[in-house]
């Protein structure tokens, strides 16, 4: 009999993998955010180490370049007491033609307990979760254009930290939404948490047409998209993912879509400006805004460590 259960949850509804925020019950998402709040206080202590993952091996499988996300996962795992192994994919057996599942099977034979996976193909972490041993857990660190669930969760945490109640907020996600797995995960997280108005703001070539079905309002005018927004999430132009000529130039993008102080003034007076990073100064965002009073871009990084600690400690404590 085919199971209709979300593959991320065990039979008790507990989280055993984190592949996507999509389909997670609100209680599970809120549990992650509540747990992250506890870990945030741990990161202020003298001794920033807990025994929760002591003796466990966390393998970072990054098939796509990343320093920032990989480093924060490594810090998070270290703070939980785990041993972290970073797999250098470019120099690994993948380059020699080994299949993804063979790589995973070999690493499991080395008693890996948790895989953190970033891959250019959407669905790769799901494939791994389907085929790994029952006591092994998978965290998706970004797959293709599909999902980046820990980013979606840390963005939700950031918003909760500064704004409290989700149910009264207007959130604008601005920029290259088409190629952004962050935007998709943000939308899933924020709709699950009850945000009443999410706006997808960007040029027609960079905003998918079917977002209305996800409960999102599409704006192709930046002023309209920013007006009265409580939260502005800026996205980076994903040059490495863009195939065809979707934009004339980065300069053209900045002229019509760059977040300047003047444009930010259209948003709510106490709005916060977020960005998953890395930022392209002078392309999607002005330095004055990135470094200004509304920006919470740097605190997001600290929240990211706490959220990743929360995700790993929750899933590692639950059995398949």
């Amino acid at each position, binding site marked *: 009999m085919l199971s209709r259960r979300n593959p991320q949850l065990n039979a008790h509804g507990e989280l055993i993998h984190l592949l996507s925020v999509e389909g997670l019950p609100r209680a599970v998402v809120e549990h992650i955010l509540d747990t992250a709040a506890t870990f945030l206080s741990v990161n202020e202590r*003298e001794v920033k180490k807990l025994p929760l993952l002591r003796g466990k091996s966390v393998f970072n499988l990054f098939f796509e370049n990343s320093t920032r996300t990989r480093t924060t996962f490594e810090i998070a795992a270290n703070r939980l007491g785990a041993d972290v192994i970073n797999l250098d994919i470019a120099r690994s057996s993948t380059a020699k033609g080994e299949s993804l599942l063979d790589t995973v099977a070999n690493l499991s034979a080395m008693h890996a307990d948790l895989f953190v996976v970033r891959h250019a193909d959407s669905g790769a972490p799901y494939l791994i979760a389907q085929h790994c041993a029952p006591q092994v857990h998978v965290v998706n660190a970004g797959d293709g254009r599909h999902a980046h669930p820990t980013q979606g969760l840390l963005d939700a945490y950031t918003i909760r930290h500064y704004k409290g109640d989700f149910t009264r907020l207007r959130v604008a996600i601005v920029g290259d939404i088409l190629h952004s797995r962050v935007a998709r995960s943000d939308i899933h997280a924020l709709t699950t948490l009850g945000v009443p108005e999410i706006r997808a703001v960007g040029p027609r070539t960079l905003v998918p047409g079917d977002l209305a079905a996800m409960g999102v309002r599409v704006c192709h005018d930046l002023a309209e998209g920013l007006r009265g927004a409580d939260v502005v999430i800026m996205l980076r132009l994903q040059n490495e993912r863009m195939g065809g000529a979707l934009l004339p130039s980065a300069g053209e993008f900045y002229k019509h879509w760059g977040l300047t102080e003047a444009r930010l003034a259209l948003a709510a007076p106490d709005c916060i400006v977020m960005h998953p990073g890395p930022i392209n100064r002078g392309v999607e965002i002005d330095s004055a805004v990135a470094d200004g009073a509304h920006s919470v871009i740097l605190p997001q990084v600290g929240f990211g460590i706490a959220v990743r600690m929360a995700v790993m400690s929750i899933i590692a404590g639950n059995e398949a």
Partner: protein
Amino acid sequence: MTAPSLDAEALYAELLAGVRRLLPSGGVLVGVWSGGAWLAERLHADLGLPGACGVISSSLHRDDYARRGLAAGKAPTRLPFAVDGAHIVLVDDVLHTGRTVRAVINELYDFGRPASVALAVLVDRGGRELPIEPGCAAARIALPPNQALSLAREPSGGFSLAVEPRR
């Protein structure tokens, strides 16, 4: 076995007297979340101690994490004093196996090195699995392992104890 009837308020009065004897001069109270924290809060006020009492959670150092996972929604540890060199009296409602106290002491050590740690509990129900003993206990009773004892705090601030089947 019939459940013993316990007058929580009467036991609190005993506990207050015991903590007054146990607490060194300049010592601080730290209540184990949640029942211990309620007790510590009232003790702190009744003893006229300065500042605020501490609250400590056992969740991050529990030894049953692999079996039970991480508990949801517990209050984080809050210690409004320097742990280094402090004389601490831990306060908890029920002492049973001693594992919670072990976890809480580990949690304390994440903040510094205390000068001393003592333990005051409302009820010691025996069944110890670790070598941990209270400096004072208002009551010593025996309960079968399938029963749990829990402290409740009324809106008025009054305490009551109830015996429940263990989950």
